[in-house]
């Protein structure tokens, strides 16, 4: 090795402090503005239901039927699209029978439908609060189902969270959100319908908590904050998995006594309407759930199930 002269030492100092400064500059926390116009949510044309409810025992067939009734996946996914599917994979404790995580067959079928519609790639992701993504993906059965359908499981990378302005936000105007969720051409929100003590129910809008940093801080004013988040993250399509629902001890479940086999999948471009319909499965109305009501107040969708065209199918 060459001797360290003063000149060499200074060169090293300049170079390394340059790198350090650059690193520091790059990790600055300036909020970024993501254009919401990028992802448009297409309304139904004639012949397409505003909201569809498919019933049956075969989750894959039910999912296909629900999608067909709202106009098929081709209405949402165009050739070459980059698609993200966001199921609820909140814990790695229980297999799908416990109704704590989205039904893997529903997710797998959606992956397949997206690829059939010409999607460039389909990624599936969530940020579990109990356990690691790797194990939660595996235990939920969603990893296998997704890979079998040729989709990709993505472990949400800490690098990809960005601070975003929420222009329509009434309580929160900024939050850290997973960048790809905002930028994907198509976002499909696939919650499982479950009980939740504070929100009363965990449905599609609540499922968005899995794509933000510090989800627990949302609880201080959960209803409004979720509605604010929904105004930023507009899923192209909402598919509520109600094949099995969890009626108590949610969202973590753990007892089969709390699981009801309802054999249903709900699909709509309108997340608020889908949630409002799902609420009825628990004997509640959309108005009873703060985030559904506040989302409707903000004009993000409708909770008036009588005013929309609902198609019910037996698959």
């Amino acid at each position: 090795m060459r001797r360290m002269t003063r000149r060499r030492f200074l060169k090293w100092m300049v170079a390394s402090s340059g790198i350090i400064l650059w690193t520091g500059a790059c990790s600055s926390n300036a909020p970024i503005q993501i254009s919401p116009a990028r992802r448009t949510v297409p309304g139904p044309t004639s012949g397409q239901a505003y909201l569809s409810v498919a019933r049956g025992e075969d989750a894959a067939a039910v999912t296909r039927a629900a999608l067909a009734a709202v106009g098929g996946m081709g209405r949402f996914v165009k050739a070459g699209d980059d698609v993200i599917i966001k199921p609820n994979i909140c814990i790695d404790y229980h297999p799908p029978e416990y109704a704590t995580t989205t039904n893997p067959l529903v997710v797998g079928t959606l992956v397949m439908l997206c690829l059939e519609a010409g999607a460039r790639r389909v990624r599936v992701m969530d940020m579990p609060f109990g356990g690691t993504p790797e194990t939660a993906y595996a235990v939920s059965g969603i990893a296998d189902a997704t890979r079998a359908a040729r989709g990709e499981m993505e472990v949400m990378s800490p690098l990809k969270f960005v601070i975003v302005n929420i222009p329509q936000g009434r309580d929160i105007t900024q939050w850290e959100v997973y960048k790809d969720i905002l930028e994907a051409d198509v976002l499909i929100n696939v919650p499982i319908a479950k009980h939740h003590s504070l929100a009363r129910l965990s449905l599609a809008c609540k499922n968005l908590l899995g794509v933000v940093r510090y989800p627990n801080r949302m609880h201080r004013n959960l209803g409004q904050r979720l509605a604010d988040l929904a105004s930023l993250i507009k899923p192209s399509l909402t598919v509520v998995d109600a094949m099995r629902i969890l009626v108590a001890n949610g969202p973590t479940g753990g007892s089969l006594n709390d699981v009801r086999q309802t054999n249903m999948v709900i699909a709509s471009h309108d997340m608020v309407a889908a949630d409002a319909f799902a609420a009825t499965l628990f004997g509640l109305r959309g108005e009873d759930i703060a985030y559904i009501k506040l989302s409707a107040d903000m004009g993000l969708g409708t909770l008036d199930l009588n005013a929309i065209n609902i198609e019910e199918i037996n698959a």
Partner: protein
Amino acid sequence: MRKSNKWQLWRQVRQICQTFFFLLFIYLLFAALQRRVAFPLADLFFRFDPLGALGAMLASREWLPRLVLSVATVGVTVLLGRMWCGWVCPLGTLLEWIGPAQVRRRTQGVPPRWRSGKYLILVGVLSMAALGSLTLLILDPLALFTRTMTTVVLPALNYVVTAVLGALYPIPLLQGVLDTVEQLVRGSMLPVKQPFFVGNLLIASIFVLILALNRLADRFWCRYLCPLGALLALFSRISLLRPAVGGGCARCGRCSNVCRVDAIEVQEDYRIVPSECVVCLDCLAACPEQGIGLRAAIPVSTMRVNKQIAWPAPGESYDPSRRQLLAALGLGVAGVVVMRTSPRAHSPDPALIRPPGAQDEETFLSRCLRCTQCMKVCPTSGLQPTLLQGGLEALWTPHLVPRLGYCNYGCNACGQVCPSGAIPPLDLESKRRIVLGHAVIDRDRCLPWAAGIPCIVCEEMCPVAPKAIRLEEVAVLDSRGTQVVVQRPHVLGDLCIGCGICEYQCPVEGEAAIRVFRVQTSETKNILI
């Protein structure tokens, strides 16, 4: 020109062997890194460690079948000498690699009698183990190396990789590549959440000190301090095959120049001391006359004839005296007695929450090898090195710090990787019933209790069914005097298993508004699953 020598080939075999075991050791570190399901042989090295095995069996007074393989290490040592040290031990390999590159000079300024240090440490380890205390196993080389890797190197590696990727990420051209790299390593090789370990600086300092001592003498640790080396040295005194200098010796001194452990007594007719020799074969490879060979020290024929290969090997000037041994023994015994009479031994810190199945403190302390594997595998990094919460005796044993990481309801990995069974290998259903501690709500900090702010995160997170937290709906006045309805949490003591996810997730900043405290004795719960 030096004649080609078959021992040069053997030396290469040894170097390949060392590299292989070192890489295997590193691979196993990653194979059981924050995993819910650990690689089944993650504790392979520990199973071959006779010091840990002897210590744990002495201390627990139980036969620990998982550690029986260590007999093989003893067997190899009796046959061939301290091959473990020269061919296998990853710490020894590391110390060898960072040793001086040029022909190793003989020890400078370290008196040979320091070699007795390792025997005295060994006597300390074993005398304390005989009284049920494994505290000194913190000096086991495998435990020491694993501990440093777990709490210092791997978290630092994760930090650096994340920082570098984060710094490069804003460059649009690189994002595709970085995304691929992230998906390859994140969640599999590197954790999603940065792990932090209590007292990592102390652990790092000790390791750096051991590395620095290598400047005083090559493999300083192995020569003067290592208790496992000392144990194997006792067996290598009766080893059957040893390097010995033959008749053709030209007294050139090359062998003693290359010997990393200074095992060749030039003054005593180039005698190779079997208790110090780590069978690295460097001397055989370096001998221009091929005058050194492996000779059998068959008991009957060679016993008194030739001091070089006498069996058993004669004592050395630096062997500890009877007085020193008794002093080490006495210190060990006194150490245990003093540690046991400290207040913390009587009543450990209420925050000292033991891993699942390790609730009986005395039993646990008599088995725990201080190897840190449980902390490495813990997917939440909630298992942390204990400092003085359980008295000095419990130093660097694992305990759960829920604010750093909870005990995952879907995980039983720590019991799978524990080499000695100090954390029992429980199936998931049994592990879920083990009570680690009890959660207590601090009503002065809890948002609904203290400030009238809605929050149910602890209840939401509670993994047992039915939930161990009950919510009580109450109308209260918030800070502005308006009436709000909040749900106040109450812990149901008979259902809480003390997993600590409530404490971990509690959104109150700083100390959580719900905290888990240890249970004194083991108990299990019949929770509906």
